[in-house]
Protein backbone atom coordinates (compact mmCIF):
# COMPACT_ATOMS: atom_id res chain seq x y z
CA UNK A 1 0.00 0.00 0.00
CA UNK A 2 1.21 3.52 -0.80
CA UNK A 3 1.91 5.87 2.07
CA UNK A 4 -0.93 8.21 1.00
CA UNK A 5 -3.37 5.34 1.16
CA UNK A 6 -2.25 4.56 4.71
CA UNK A 7 -2.96 8.18 5.67
CA UNK A 8 -6.41 8.09 4.11
CA UNK A 9 -7.31 4.81 5.79
CA UNK A 10 -5.98 5.95 9.18
CA UNK A 11 -8.17 9.07 9.03
CA UNK A 12 -11.21 7.04 8.02
CA UNK A 13 -10.72 4.45 10.79
CA UNK A 14 -10.59 7.28 13.32
CA UNK A 15 -13.78 8.82 11.89
CA UNK A 16 -15.39 5.37 12.11
CA UNK A 17 -14.02 4.95 15.67
CA UNK A 18 -12.73 1.54 14.57
CA UNK A 19 -10.03 0.72 17.13
CA UNK A 20 -9.29 -2.76 15.82
CA UNK A 21 -8.79 -1.56 12.24
CA UNK A 22 -6.59 1.40 13.12
CA UNK A 23 -4.44 -0.76 15.41
CA UNK A 24 -3.87 -3.29 12.59
CA UNK A 25 -3.15 -0.48 10.14
CA UNK A 26 -0.56 1.12 12.45
CA UNK A 27 1.29 -2.21 12.82
CA UNK A 28 1.36 -2.78 9.04
CA UNK A 29 2.55 0.80 8.51
CA UNK A 30 5.53 0.25 10.83
CA UNK A 31 6.44 -3.02 9.09
CA UNK A 32 6.60 -1.04 5.81
CA UNK A 33 9.19 1.18 7.53
CA UNK A 34 7.30 4.48 7.13
CA UNK A 35 7.72 7.46 9.49
CA UNK A 36 5.44 7.02 12.54
CA UNK A 37 5.24 10.76 13.24
CA UNK A 38 3.90 11.34 9.74
CA UNK A 39 1.03 8.94 10.34
CA UNK A 40 0.10 10.73 13.57
CA UNK A 41 0.27 14.16 11.98
CA UNK A 42 -1.22 13.48 8.56
CA UNK A 43 -3.43 10.41 9.07
CA UNK A 44 -4.76 10.14 12.62
CA UNK A 45 -4.92 13.90 13.21
CA UNK A 46 -6.82 14.40 9.97
CA UNK A 47 -9.38 11.88 11.21
CA UNK A 48 -9.68 13.79 14.49
CA UNK A 49 -10.10 17.06 12.58
CA UNK A 50 -12.92 15.54 10.53
CA UNK A 51 -14.55 14.23 13.72
CA UNK A 52 -14.46 17.73 15.20
CA UNK A 53 -16.36 19.10 12.21
CA UNK A 54 -18.94 16.28 12.36
CA UNK A 55 -19.39 16.77 16.11
CA UNK A 56 -19.89 20.52 15.70
CA UNK A 57 -22.58 19.87 13.10
CA UNK A 58 -24.39 17.37 15.34
CA UNK A 59 -23.67 14.49 12.98
CA UNK A 60 -21.74 12.39 15.49
CA UNK A 61 -22.23 12.34 19.24
CA UNK A 62 -20.23 12.34 22.44
CA UNK A 63 -19.87 8.56 22.97
CA UNK A 64 -18.59 8.21 19.38
CA UNK A 65 -16.00 10.90 20.09
CA UNK A 66 -14.84 9.06 23.21
CA UNK A 67 -14.51 5.72 21.39
CA UNK A 68 -12.66 7.44 18.52
CA UNK A 69 -10.25 9.07 20.96
CA UNK A 70 -9.52 5.63 22.45
CA UNK A 71 -8.81 4.30 18.96
CA UNK A 72 -6.43 7.23 18.43
CA UNK A 73 -4.65 6.51 21.74
CA UNK A 74 -4.20 2.84 20.83
CA UNK A 75 -2.75 3.69 17.40
CA UNK A 76 -0.42 6.34 18.83
CA UNK A 77 0.92 3.85 21.43
CA UNK A 78 1.84 1.43 18.65
CA UNK A 79 3.48 4.12 16.53
CA UNK A 80 5.40 5.46 19.54
CA UNK A 81 7.32 2.18 19.70
CA UNK A 82 9.19 3.28 16.59
CA UNK A 83 9.62 6.92 17.58
CA UNK A 84 12.65 8.66 19.13
CA UNK A 85 12.37 8.72 22.93
CA UNK A 86 12.13 12.54 23.10
CA UNK A 87 9.01 12.46 20.89
CA UNK A 88 7.12 9.84 22.90
CA UNK A 89 4.14 10.97 25.00
CA UNK A 90 4.55 14.55 23.87
CA UNK A 91 1.51 16.70 24.63
CA UNK A 92 0.75 20.12 23.23
CA UNK A 93 0.16 21.75 26.63
CA UNK A 94 -1.12 21.12 30.15
CA UNK A 95 -4.66 22.38 30.66
CA UNK A 96 -6.47 22.69 34.00
CA UNK A 97 -10.21 22.97 33.47
CA UNK A 98 -13.31 23.09 35.67
CA UNK A 99 -16.76 24.58 36.24
CA UNK A 100 -16.47 27.54 38.57
CA UNK A 101 -17.48 27.48 42.25
CA UNK A 102 -21.25 27.45 42.83
CA UNK A 103 -22.05 26.16 39.36
CA UNK A 104 -22.89 22.50 38.75
CA UNK A 105 -23.38 22.69 34.98
CA UNK A 106 -20.63 20.64 33.44
CA UNK A 107 -21.89 19.01 30.26
CA UNK A 108 -20.27 21.65 28.06
CA UNK A 109 -17.07 21.74 30.08
CA UNK A 110 -16.85 17.95 29.83
CA UNK A 111 -17.14 18.14 26.06
CA UNK A 112 -14.38 20.77 25.92
CA UNK A 113 -12.12 18.57 28.10
CA UNK A 114 -12.79 15.56 25.86
CA UNK A 115 -12.09 17.48 22.66
CA UNK A 116 -8.85 18.86 24.06
CA UNK A 117 -7.67 15.36 25.01
CA UNK A 118 -8.55 14.11 21.56
CA UNK A 119 -6.44 16.89 20.04
CA UNK A 120 -3.37 16.04 22.10
CA UNK A 121 -3.58 18.28 25.17
CA UNK A 122 -2.95 16.93 28.66
CA UNK A 123 -6.15 17.80 30.51
CA UNK A 124 -6.72 17.94 34.26
CA UNK A 125 -10.49 18.12 34.64
CA UNK A 126 -11.35 19.31 38.15
CA UNK A 127 -15.09 18.70 37.70
CA UNK A 128 -17.94 20.98 38.74
CA UNK A 129 -18.44 23.51 41.55
CA UNK A 130 -14.65 23.86 41.85
CA UNK A 131 -13.34 26.23 44.56
CA UNK A 132 -11.04 28.99 43.27
CA UNK A 133 -8.23 27.72 45.53
CA UNK A 134 -8.41 24.28 43.90
CA UNK A 135 -7.83 25.78 40.43
CA UNK A 136 -4.79 27.66 41.77
CA UNK A 137 -3.36 24.67 43.67
CA UNK A 138 -3.69 22.36 40.65
CA UNK A 139 -2.19 24.90 38.27
CA UNK A 140 0.78 25.30 40.60
CA UNK A 141 1.18 21.56 41.19
CA UNK A 142 1.33 20.53 37.56
CA UNK A 143 2.81 23.70 36.07
CA UNK A 144 -0.24 24.42 33.94
CA UNK A 145 0.06 26.20 30.61
CA UNK A 146 -3.67 26.95 30.51
CA UNK A 147 -6.38 27.41 33.14
CA UNK A 148 -9.93 27.24 31.80
CA UNK A 149 -13.13 27.92 33.69
CA UNK A 150 -16.76 27.52 32.71
CA UNK A 151 -19.83 29.34 34.05
CA UNK A 152 -23.40 28.79 32.91
CA UNK A 153 -25.03 31.27 35.24
CA UNK A 154 -24.68 35.02 35.60
CA UNK A 155 -24.56 34.47 39.37
CA UNK A 156 -21.46 32.29 39.13
CA UNK A 157 -19.48 33.98 36.38
CA UNK A 158 -18.13 36.47 38.95
CA UNK A 159 -16.05 33.53 40.20
CA UNK A 160 -14.06 33.73 36.95
CA UNK A 161 -13.00 37.25 37.92
CA UNK A 162 -11.97 36.00 41.36
CA UNK A 163 -9.95 33.25 39.66
CA UNK A 164 -8.01 35.81 37.63
CA UNK A 165 -7.11 37.65 40.85
CA UNK A 166 -6.24 34.46 42.74
CA UNK A 167 -3.85 33.38 39.96
CA UNK A 168 -2.21 36.83 40.08
CA UNK A 169 -1.92 36.72 43.87
CA UNK A 170 -0.28 33.30 43.64
CA UNK A 171 2.26 34.67 41.14
CA UNK A 172 1.11 32.28 38.41
CA UNK A 173 -0.84 34.54 36.11
CA UNK A 174 2.04 35.77 33.93
CA UNK A 175 3.16 32.24 33.12
CA UNK A 176 -0.09 30.79 31.87
CA UNK A 177 -3.05 31.46 29.63
CA UNK A 178 -6.56 31.81 31.02
CA UNK A 179 -9.58 30.94 28.94
CA UNK A 180 -13.22 31.00 29.81
CA UNK A 181 -16.52 29.82 28.43
CA UNK A 182 -20.07 28.82 29.32
CA UNK A 183 -23.48 30.04 28.22
CA UNK A 184 -23.50 33.13 30.43
CA UNK A 185 -20.12 34.42 29.25
CA UNK A 186 -19.09 36.55 26.29
CA UNK A 187 -15.93 37.85 24.66
CA UNK A 188 -16.64 41.18 26.33
CA UNK A 189 -16.70 39.54 29.75
CA UNK A 190 -13.38 37.81 29.10
CA UNK A 191 -11.78 41.11 28.08
CA UNK A 192 -13.31 42.93 31.05
CA UNK A 193 -11.86 40.57 33.66
CA UNK A 194 -8.51 40.20 31.90
CA UNK A 195 -8.76 36.61 30.70
CA UNK A 196 -6.63 35.78 27.67
CA UNK A 197 -9.52 34.53 25.59
CA UNK A 198 -13.13 33.42 25.47
CA UNK A 199 -14.29 30.38 23.53
CA UNK A 200 -17.77 29.95 22.12
CA UNK A 201 -17.75 26.17 21.75
CA UNK A 202 -15.56 23.09 22.16
CA UNK A 203 -14.37 23.44 18.57
CA UNK A 204 -13.55 27.10 19.10
CA UNK A 205 -11.50 26.22 22.22
CA UNK A 206 -9.47 23.63 20.36
CA UNK A 207 -8.86 25.96 17.43
CA UNK A 208 -7.68 28.83 19.63
CA UNK A 209 -5.40 26.69 21.81
CA UNK A 210 -3.95 24.89 18.80
CA UNK A 211 -3.06 28.24 17.26
CA UNK A 212 -1.07 29.04 20.39
CA UNK A 213 0.60 25.70 21.09
CA UNK A 214 1.11 23.99 17.72
Amino acid at each position, binding site marked *: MEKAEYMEKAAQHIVDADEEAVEKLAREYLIEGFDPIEMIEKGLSEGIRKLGVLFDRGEIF*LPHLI*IASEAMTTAVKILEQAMPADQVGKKLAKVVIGTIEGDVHDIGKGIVATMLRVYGFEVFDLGRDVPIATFVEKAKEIGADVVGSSALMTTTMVGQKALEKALKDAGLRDNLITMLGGAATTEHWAAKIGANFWAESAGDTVMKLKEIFS
Partner: protein
Amino acid sequence: MKKHLTRRGDGALIEMTSEEIMIALEAGTEDAADRGKIAPLSKDDLECLLDIFMDTNRVVSVAHGEEVVVTHDIGTLRLMGDQGNSGVGIPLSRLQGIQVHERAFCSDTMELGHIDYSFKPVKPVIAMEQQEMESALLSTIIPLFYGAMPNLGTYYSPDGPFGNPSDLLPAGKVKEAYEAQESAVEHATRDMVYVGQKLAQVGCDGINFDTTGAAGDADFKATLHAVEKLKKTTDLTVQVGMAGEFVLGMHGGLEYGGRRLAGLYCHDQVKLAEKAGADIFGPAVNTKPSKDMPWNLARAVTFVKACVEVSNIPVHVNMGMGVGGIPVFETPPIDAVSRASKAMVQIAKVDGL
Protein backbone atom coordinates in the same frame (compact mmCIF):
# COMPACT_ATOMS: atom_id res chain seq x y z
CA MET B 1 -22.49 55.03 3.26
CA LYS B 2 -25.30 55.24 5.83
CA LYS B 3 -24.82 53.09 8.92
CA HIS B 4 -27.61 51.47 10.92
CA LEU B 5 -27.50 50.73 14.62
CA THR B 6 -27.77 47.07 15.53
CA ARG B 7 -26.30 44.66 18.05
CA ARG B 8 -23.63 42.05 18.35
CA GLY B 9 -24.71 38.68 19.74
CA ASP B 10 -23.40 39.73 23.16
CA GLY B 11 -25.61 42.85 23.17
CA ALA B 12 -22.97 45.45 22.26
CA LEU B 13 -24.30 48.28 20.09
CA ILE B 14 -22.67 48.27 16.64
CA GLU B 15 -23.17 50.03 13.29
CA MET B 16 -23.54 48.26 9.95
CA THR B 17 -24.31 49.43 6.43
CA SER B 18 -27.29 47.90 4.62
CA GLU B 19 -24.85 45.93 2.44
CA GLU B 20 -23.10 44.54 5.52
CA ILE B 21 -26.44 43.62 7.07
CA MET B 22 -27.52 41.77 3.92
CA ILE B 23 -24.25 39.83 3.78
CA ALA B 24 -24.74 38.79 7.43
CA LEU B 25 -28.37 37.82 6.78
CA GLU B 26 -27.37 35.65 3.84
CA ALA B 27 -24.60 33.96 5.82
CA GLY B 28 -26.91 33.34 8.81
CA THR B 29 -29.65 31.73 6.75
CA GLU B 30 -27.11 29.62 4.84
CA ASP B 31 -25.62 28.34 8.11
CA ALA B 32 -29.06 27.17 9.30
CA ALA B 33 -29.92 25.68 5.91
CA ASP B 34 -26.64 23.79 5.80
CA ARG B 35 -26.83 22.42 9.33
CA GLY B 36 -30.54 21.62 9.36
CA LYS B 37 -30.69 20.51 5.71
CA ILE B 38 -33.61 22.89 5.22
CA ALA B 39 -34.43 25.67 2.77
CA PRO B 40 -32.71 29.03 3.28
CA LEU B 41 -34.86 32.17 3.53
CA SER B 42 -36.11 33.54 0.20
CA LYS B 43 -34.92 36.83 -1.27
CA ASP B 44 -38.21 38.43 -0.17
CA ASP B 45 -37.75 37.15 3.38
CA LEU B 46 -34.21 38.52 3.50
CA GLU B 47 -35.40 41.90 2.23
CA CYS B 48 -38.13 41.93 4.87
CA LEU B 49 -35.47 41.22 7.51
CA LEU B 50 -33.30 44.00 6.10
CA ASP B 51 -36.22 46.43 6.39
CA ILE B 52 -36.69 45.43 10.02
CA PHE B 53 -33.02 46.17 10.74
CA MET B 54 -33.07 49.46 8.81
CA ASP B 55 -36.18 50.77 10.59
CA THR B 56 -34.96 53.84 12.47
CA ASN B 57 -37.46 53.41 15.30
CA ARG B 58 -35.97 52.04 18.48
CA VAL B 59 -38.97 49.76 19.06
CA VAL B 60 -40.76 48.04 16.17
CA SER B 61 -43.94 45.99 16.05
CA VAL B 62 -46.34 44.14 13.77
CA ALA B 63 -49.39 45.56 11.97
CA HIS B 64 -52.90 45.42 13.44
CA GLY B 65 -54.32 41.95 12.96
CA GLU B 66 -50.90 40.26 12.97
CA GLU B 67 -50.63 40.06 16.76
CA VAL B 68 -49.84 36.64 18.24
CA VAL B 69 -50.26 34.94 21.61
CA VAL B 70 -47.68 36.00 24.17
CA THR B 71 -47.02 33.60 26.97
CA HIS B 72 -44.39 33.17 29.67
CA ASP B 73 -42.19 30.47 31.10
CA ILE B 74 -39.92 30.45 34.22
CA GLY B 75 -43.03 30.97 36.41
CA THR B 76 -42.95 34.21 38.36
CA LEU B 77 -39.18 34.15 38.84
CA ARG B 78 -38.91 36.92 36.24
CA LEU B 79 -40.30 39.26 38.89
CA MET B 80 -39.27 37.62 42.14
CA GLY B 81 -35.84 36.25 41.31
CA ASP B 82 -32.77 38.41 41.66
CA GLN B 83 -30.88 39.66 38.63
CA GLY B 84 -28.73 36.57 38.53
CA ASN B 85 -31.88 34.54 38.17
CA SER B 86 -33.19 36.52 35.20
CA GLY B 87 -35.50 38.48 37.50
CA VAL B 88 -35.84 41.95 38.94
CA GLY B 89 -35.89 41.05 42.63
CA ILE B 90 -39.36 42.33 43.56
CA PRO B 91 -40.60 40.66 46.76
CA LEU B 92 -43.93 39.25 45.63
CA SER B 93 -45.71 36.01 46.37
CA ARG B 94 -46.14 33.64 43.44
CA LEU B 95 -49.87 34.36 43.44
CA GLN B 96 -49.21 38.11 43.23
CA GLY B 97 -46.72 37.48 40.45
CA ILE B 98 -49.30 35.58 38.42
CA GLN B 99 -51.88 38.31 38.96
CA VAL B 100 -49.38 40.97 37.81
CA HIS B 101 -48.80 38.99 34.61
CA GLU B 102 -52.54 38.66 34.04
CA ARG B 103 -53.70 42.16 35.01
CA ALA B 104 -50.71 44.42 34.33
CA PHE B 105 -48.73 42.66 31.60
CA CYS B 106 -51.83 41.32 29.77
CA SER B 107 -50.24 37.90 29.30
CA ASP B 108 -52.32 35.44 27.31
CA THR B 109 -51.32 32.53 29.55
CA MET B 110 -49.17 32.27 32.64
CA GLU B 111 -47.52 29.54 34.62
CA LEU B 112 -46.76 28.61 38.20
CA GLY B 113 -43.24 27.36 38.84
CA HIS B 114 -41.21 26.19 41.83
CA ILE B 115 -38.08 28.11 42.85
CA ASP B 116 -35.88 25.15 41.74
CA TYR B 117 -37.83 24.98 38.47
CA SER B 118 -37.08 21.28 37.89
CA PHE B 119 -39.59 18.42 38.13
CA LYS B 120 -37.59 16.25 40.52
CA PRO B 121 -37.47 18.68 43.48
CA VAL B 122 -41.20 19.42 43.05
CA LYS B 123 -42.10 15.83 43.88
CA PRO B 124 -41.60 16.06 47.68
CA VAL B 125 -43.50 19.39 47.87
CA ILE B 126 -46.28 18.49 45.44
CA ALA B 127 -49.04 19.09 48.03
CA MET B 128 -47.86 22.70 48.43
CA GLU B 129 -47.76 23.15 44.67
CA GLN B 130 -51.28 21.76 44.35
CA GLN B 131 -52.51 24.21 47.00
CA GLU B 132 -50.77 27.17 45.35
CA MET B 133 -52.12 26.16 41.94
CA GLU B 134 -55.64 25.89 43.27
CA SER B 135 -55.44 29.35 44.89
CA ALA B 136 -54.10 30.85 41.68
CA LEU B 137 -56.79 29.21 39.55
CA LEU B 138 -59.50 30.58 41.85
CA SER B 139 -58.27 34.18 41.62
CA THR B 140 -57.36 34.48 37.92
CA ILE B 141 -59.06 33.89 34.59
CA ILE B 142 -56.13 33.29 32.18
CA PRO B 143 -55.08 29.71 31.39
CA LEU B 144 -52.55 28.56 33.98
CA PHE B 145 -49.75 26.15 33.21
CA TYR B 146 -47.38 24.51 35.65
CA GLY B 147 -43.83 24.86 34.39
CA ALA B 148 -40.58 23.05 35.19
CA MET B 149 -37.49 21.64 33.49
CA PRO B 150 -37.13 17.89 32.87
CA ASN B 151 -33.48 18.46 33.95
CA LEU B 152 -32.04 14.96 33.85
CA GLY B 153 -28.94 16.40 35.48
CA THR B 154 -30.75 16.08 38.81
CA TYR B 155 -30.78 12.29 38.40
CA TYR B 156 -27.00 12.01 38.05
CA SER B 157 -24.37 12.24 40.78
CA PRO B 158 -23.86 14.26 42.93
CA ASP B 159 -27.58 15.15 42.95
CA GLY B 160 -29.11 11.85 41.93
CA PRO B 161 -28.73 8.07 42.15
CA PHE B 162 -27.03 7.41 38.80
CA GLY B 163 -23.48 7.92 37.61
CA ASN B 164 -22.88 11.20 35.80
CA PRO B 165 -22.31 10.75 32.03
CA SER B 166 -20.09 13.85 32.15
CA ASP B 167 -17.74 11.90 34.44
CA LEU B 168 -18.25 8.45 32.95
CA LEU B 169 -17.69 9.33 29.29
CA PRO B 170 -14.30 11.05 29.70
CA ALA B 171 -13.26 8.05 31.82
CA GLY B 172 -14.03 5.81 28.83
CA LYS B 173 -16.96 4.15 30.65
CA VAL B 174 -19.29 4.38 27.68
CA LYS B 175 -21.47 1.40 28.61
CA GLU B 176 -21.97 2.75 32.14
CA ALA B 177 -22.83 6.19 30.71
CA TYR B 178 -25.46 4.60 28.46
CA GLU B 179 -26.96 2.69 31.40
CA ALA B 180 -27.04 5.76 33.66
CA GLN B 181 -28.94 7.74 31.02
CA GLU B 182 -31.38 4.94 30.28
CA SER B 183 -32.12 4.58 34.02
CA ALA B 184 -32.54 8.35 34.38
CA VAL B 185 -35.08 8.34 31.54
CA GLU B 186 -37.27 5.86 33.45
CA HIS B 187 -37.10 7.77 36.73
CA ALA B 188 -37.59 11.22 35.20
CA THR B 189 -40.58 10.03 33.17
CA ARG B 190 -42.19 8.60 36.29
CA ASP B 191 -41.60 11.82 38.28
CA MET B 192 -42.89 14.14 35.55
CA VAL B 193 -46.02 12.04 35.12
CA TYR B 194 -46.57 12.01 38.90
CA VAL B 195 -46.25 15.81 39.16
CA GLY B 196 -48.48 16.38 36.13
CA GLN B 197 -51.20 14.04 37.34
CA LYS B 198 -51.25 15.62 40.81
CA LEU B 199 -51.60 19.10 39.32
CA ALA B 200 -54.33 17.94 36.96
CA GLN B 201 -56.28 16.82 40.03
CA VAL B 202 -56.62 20.44 41.20
CA GLY B 203 -57.69 21.76 37.80
CA CYS B 204 -54.37 22.97 36.37
CA ASP B 205 -54.92 23.96 32.72
CA GLY B 206 -51.63 22.78 31.29
CA ILE B 207 -48.06 21.72 31.84
CA ASN B 208 -44.94 23.22 30.29
CA PHE B 209 -41.79 21.14 29.84
CA ASP B 210 -39.25 23.92 29.70
CA THR B 211 -35.68 23.62 28.26
CA THR B 212 -36.32 20.08 27.12
CA GLY B 213 -33.16 18.38 25.89
CA ALA B 214 -30.83 20.52 28.02
CA ALA B 215 -29.15 17.35 29.34
CA GLY B 216 -29.11 15.72 25.92
CA ASP B 217 -31.13 13.11 24.07
CA ALA B 218 -32.12 11.25 27.25
CA ASP B 219 -33.75 14.46 28.52
CA PHE B 220 -35.83 14.70 25.34
CA LYS B 221 -36.78 11.03 25.42
CA ALA B 222 -38.01 11.20 29.04
CA THR B 223 -40.10 14.26 28.19
CA LEU B 224 -41.71 12.63 25.16
CA HIS B 225 -42.66 9.58 27.23
CA ALA B 226 -44.09 11.82 29.98
CA VAL B 227 -46.10 13.81 27.42
CA GLU B 228 -47.52 10.61 25.98
CA LYS B 229 -48.57 9.30 29.40
CA LEU B 230 -50.04 12.61 30.57
CA LYS B 231 -52.11 13.00 27.42
CA LYS B 232 -53.53 9.54 27.96
CA THR B 233 -54.32 10.00 31.66
CA THR B 234 -55.21 13.70 32.08
CA ASP B 235 -56.86 16.51 30.13
CA LEU B 236 -53.83 18.80 30.56
CA THR B 237 -52.72 20.98 27.65
CA VAL B 238 -49.06 20.13 27.10
CA GLN B 239 -46.38 22.49 25.90
CA VAL B 240 -42.89 21.25 25.02
CA GLY B 241 -40.29 24.01 25.03
CA MET B 242 -36.79 23.12 23.85
CA ALA B 243 -33.30 24.03 25.07
CA GLY B 244 -31.60 24.44 21.71
CA GLU B 245 -31.87 24.07 17.96
CA PHE B 246 -30.46 20.56 17.99
CA VAL B 247 -30.60 17.75 20.48
CA LEU B 248 -27.23 17.08 22.06
CA GLY B 249 -26.14 13.45 21.75
CA MET B 250 -24.97 12.56 25.25
CA HIS B 251 -26.14 9.01 24.55
CA GLY B 252 -26.48 9.02 20.81
CA GLY B 253 -28.50 5.84 20.45
CA LEU B 254 -31.81 6.75 22.07
CA GLU B 255 -34.90 6.69 19.89
CA TYR B 256 -38.55 7.67 20.05
CA GLY B 257 -41.05 6.36 17.54
CA GLY B 258 -38.23 4.84 15.53
CA ARG B 259 -36.33 8.14 15.19
CA ARG B 260 -32.90 8.70 16.70
CA LEU B 261 -33.18 11.74 18.95
CA ALA B 262 -29.58 12.98 18.97
CA GLY B 263 -28.87 15.63 16.38
CA LEU B 264 -32.50 16.43 15.55
CA TYR B 265 -33.19 20.04 14.57
CA CYS B 266 -36.39 22.05 15.29
CA HIS B 267 -38.37 20.81 12.29
CA ASP B 268 -37.79 17.18 13.33
CA GLN B 269 -38.19 17.85 17.06
CA VAL B 270 -41.70 19.24 16.53
CA LYS B 271 -42.86 16.13 14.70
CA LEU B 272 -41.89 13.94 17.65
CA ALA B 273 -43.52 16.33 20.14
CA GLU B 274 -46.64 16.11 17.97
CA LYS B 275 -46.45 12.32 17.87
CA ALA B 276 -46.23 12.19 21.68
CA GLY B 277 -49.38 14.30 21.88
CA ALA B 278 -48.04 17.78 22.70
CA ASP B 279 -50.44 20.66 22.03
CA ILE B 280 -47.89 23.48 21.71
CA PHE B 281 -44.22 23.37 20.66
CA GLY B 282 -41.59 25.91 21.62
CA PRO B 283 -38.46 25.79 19.44
CA ALA B 284 -35.31 27.42 20.80
CA VAL B 285 -32.42 28.62 18.65
CA ASN B 286 -29.33 29.69 20.57
CA THR B 287 -27.58 32.97 19.82
CA LYS B 288 -23.86 33.04 19.03
CA PRO B 289 -22.39 35.98 20.99
CA SER B 290 -19.47 36.38 18.57
CA LYS B 291 -21.73 36.95 15.55
CA ASP B 292 -23.84 40.04 14.89
CA MET B 293 -27.59 40.16 15.37
CA PRO B 294 -28.53 40.06 11.65
CA TRP B 295 -26.58 36.78 11.29
CA ASN B 296 -28.15 35.33 14.42
CA LEU B 297 -31.70 36.42 13.60
CA ALA B 298 -31.60 35.18 10.00
CA ARG B 299 -30.30 31.85 11.29
CA ALA B 300 -32.98 31.61 14.00
CA VAL B 301 -35.82 32.59 11.65
CA THR B 302 -34.67 29.98 9.11
CA PHE B 303 -34.80 27.16 11.67
CA VAL B 304 -38.14 28.31 13.12
CA LYS B 305 -39.77 28.90 9.73
CA ALA B 306 -38.94 25.32 8.70
CA CYS B 307 -40.42 24.13 11.99
CA VAL B 308 -43.66 26.10 11.53
CA GLU B 309 -44.04 24.84 7.97
CA VAL B 310 -44.15 21.18 9.01
CA SER B 311 -45.97 21.57 12.31
CA ASN B 312 -49.61 20.63 12.84
CA ILE B 313 -49.65 22.16 16.34
CA PRO B 314 -49.17 25.81 17.36
CA VAL B 315 -45.55 26.93 17.52
CA HIS B 316 -44.67 29.37 20.31
CA VAL B 317 -41.02 30.25 19.77
CA ASN B 318 -38.69 30.86 22.74
CA MET B 319 -37.62 34.50 22.77
CA GLY B 320 -35.33 35.97 25.40
CA MET B 321 -31.75 36.23 26.60
CA GLY B 322 -29.63 34.26 24.15
CA VAL B 323 -32.43 32.64 22.14
CA GLY B 324 -34.46 33.51 19.05
CA GLY B 325 -31.79 35.82 17.62
CA ILE B 326 -31.82 37.98 20.76
CA PRO B 327 -28.41 38.85 22.25
CA VAL B 328 -26.92 37.04 25.24
CA PHE B 329 -27.48 39.84 27.71
CA GLU B 330 -29.11 39.72 31.14
CA THR B 331 -31.69 42.39 30.29
CA PRO B 332 -32.09 42.06 26.51
CA PRO B 333 -32.29 45.44 24.76
CA ILE B 334 -35.78 46.35 23.53
CA ASP B 335 -34.58 47.26 20.02
CA ALA B 336 -33.28 43.71 19.64
CA VAL B 337 -36.24 41.98 21.31
CA SER B 338 -38.85 43.83 19.26
CA ARG B 339 -36.99 43.27 15.96
CA ALA B 340 -36.51 39.57 16.61
CA SER B 341 -40.16 39.17 17.67
CA LYS B 342 -41.44 41.00 14.58
CA ALA B 343 -39.31 38.81 12.32
CA MET B 344 -40.55 35.61 13.97
CA VAL B 345 -44.17 36.67 13.47
CA GLN B 346 -43.92 38.12 9.96
CA ILE B 347 -41.39 35.78 8.37
CA ALA B 348 -41.36 32.55 10.39
CA LYS B 349 -45.16 32.84 10.90
CA VAL B 350 -45.10 31.62 14.49
CA ASP B 351 -48.37 31.30 16.40
CA GLY B 352 -47.00 32.73 19.60
CA LEU B 353 -44.00 34.03 21.50
